[in-house]
């Protein structure tokens, strides 16, 4: 069960373009599953920013001197993320979590490819551990626009069978997109599942590649969220259910991980006409 953690910043260090922030969060490690996220409050009651910001959980630790802690990877680019990046050791931090449905893990020890775009890599390392623990082979692909925005290369190399890297500008690894190398990695590793987290365009492209290869994809989406706990309905996207019907699902509680072939990528941001309850003449 998620709870409200009135924690403290243990550490906040710059790593490339990002900040890796460690905060105390008592029981989070026990409750955590790979793919969960936390929602961080931006300041106290004096703050004019009242909505929390969502961050994938990068790591949890329950053996440290601080009791349970949680790590997130923050890309500063707006008022909320800039604030979090500015936090210092011992500053108070309020976070709610763990939130969201975790990644689904395969029942059998099948090979898996993990694809992370930018800070989208963050949730994949604990996932890799869980998969490895089940005997799955793990291959990693990390991509970003430029070298500074790659996250976790060393760690990915350590915990995976192979690591492939792409950057849009060629400053690290192969110049290009993750989907340029994905087919090859799937083929070589004989992957049965692709896990992906990153920008929506990337997730869409990854799902298409997975579909072409006839394998399952799990994509962790990023939709603008107001509450993060399922009560506001701002974070929806069109997803096809097991009954074949498209519904506007909440990415915070029905996701953020969805099966790639179930998300109607071309119509994210829209209401497909055949969506359950879609507007018909004169009713919306």
């Amino acid at each position, binding site marked *: 069960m998620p709870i409200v953690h009135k924690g403290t910043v243990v550490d906040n260090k710059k790593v490339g373009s990002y900040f890796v922030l460690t905060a105390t969060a008592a029981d989070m490690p026990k409750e955590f599953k790979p793919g969960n996220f936390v929602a961080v409050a931006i300041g106290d009651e004096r703050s*004019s920013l*009242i909505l929390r910001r969502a961050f994938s959980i990068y790591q949890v630790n329950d053996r440290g001197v601080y009791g349970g802690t949680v790590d997130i990877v923050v890309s500063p680019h707006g008022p909320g993320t800039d604030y979090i990046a500015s936090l210092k050791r011992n500053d108070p931090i309020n976070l709610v979590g763990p939130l969201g449905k975790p990644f689904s893990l395969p029942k059998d020890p099948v090979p898996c490819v993990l694809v992370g775009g930018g800070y989208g890599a963050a949730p994949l390392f604990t996932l890799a551990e869980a998969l490895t623990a089940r005997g799955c082979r793990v291959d990693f692909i990390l991509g970003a626009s430029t070298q500074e925005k790659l996250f976790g290369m060393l760690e990915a190399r350590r915990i995976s069978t192979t690591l492939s890297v792409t950057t849009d500008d060629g400053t690290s690894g192969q110049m290009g997109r993750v989907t340029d190398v994905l087919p090859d990695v799937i083929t070589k590793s004989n992957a049965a599942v692709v896990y992906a987290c990153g920008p929506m365009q990337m997730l869409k492209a990854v799902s298409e590649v997975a579909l072409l290869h006839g394998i399952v994809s799990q994509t962790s989406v990023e939709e603008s969220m107001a*509450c993060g706990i*399922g009560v*506001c309905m*701002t974070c929806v996207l069109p997803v096809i259910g097991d009954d074949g019907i498209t519904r*506007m699902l909440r990415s915070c509680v029905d996701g953020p991980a969805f099966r790639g072939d179930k998300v109607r990528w071309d119509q994210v941001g829209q*209401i497909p006409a055949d969506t359950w309850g879609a507007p018909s003449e004169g*009713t919306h």
Partner: protein
Amino acid sequence: MKRVPKRTSVDMSVDLARINLESPVFTASGCAAAGKELDQFIDITSIGAVVTKSVMLNPRSGRATPRMAETPSGMLNGIGLQGPGIDEFIANDLSWLSQKGAKTIVSIAGNNVEEFGKVADKLRDIPGVVGIEVNISCPNVENRGQVFACNPNAAADVINTVRRNVSASMPLFAKLSPDVTDITEIARAVVKAGADGLSVINTLLGMVIDIDTLKPKLSGKTGGLSGPAIRPVAIRCVYQIRKALPEIPIIGMGGIRNGRDAVEFFAAGANAVSVGTTVFNDPEACVRIHDEIAEILQEKGLRSIRDIVNVAHN
């Protein structure tokens, strides 16, 4: 682990249009879904009432995203009343709530007057439903999308119809929009039409322009402004209505963030309060605010929440 109100010697119970409730703090419609998600953080049966997301006759997909924008001390939303429709709502959400033992105020909406009646009719004899909140701040598709709550006749029509479709003993709350020249005029009209109480206020119509695209940020262009930013407007509306209608039960809402804010509402004339946007910031807010109100009353040497209602008028 679920938060419940602290014990207090202050009598926090309220009598609201024939309903007796243990706490004067409710959720606000659309900010707590149907209570299930919040029940992870607070014991949903320990707050005054769960006011559910406005439900319509048929399932609704709601609007395209983006559905929200953050604003200074507030937010803009344009969800478009996404929901399962009244039948599925009764089957799933209400049955869960009643099984839990929660007190539920069901918020209903409609595209036209008739639809409001149909939705209300379905709610007869459903256990756990202690009241109905009629969200008239939605557009009337039969009148060029004019919002019911912005016209005294349209507002009264809706309340009249709902009144005829529910049992005489079912408490009805009309939820008013602040986007009118004279909110007391609408208040009088709906009370005359059979509302037992008023919910004050719904969101203010607003717009945010996306600085990158230079287009309205919400897919629906305009949206509803909520949060602490609007509190002074909400307090003014409650105060004006209380002055115009000294006896009508009022559920106050709009920007309540803590116990002090809630106390402002009670003093202005509210008999109970709903907490909306703040729940997004603090999922425990309804219980925390209950506790904070009790503390303030205690500091002031008051024994009952009812001792503070309306005092700003004396």
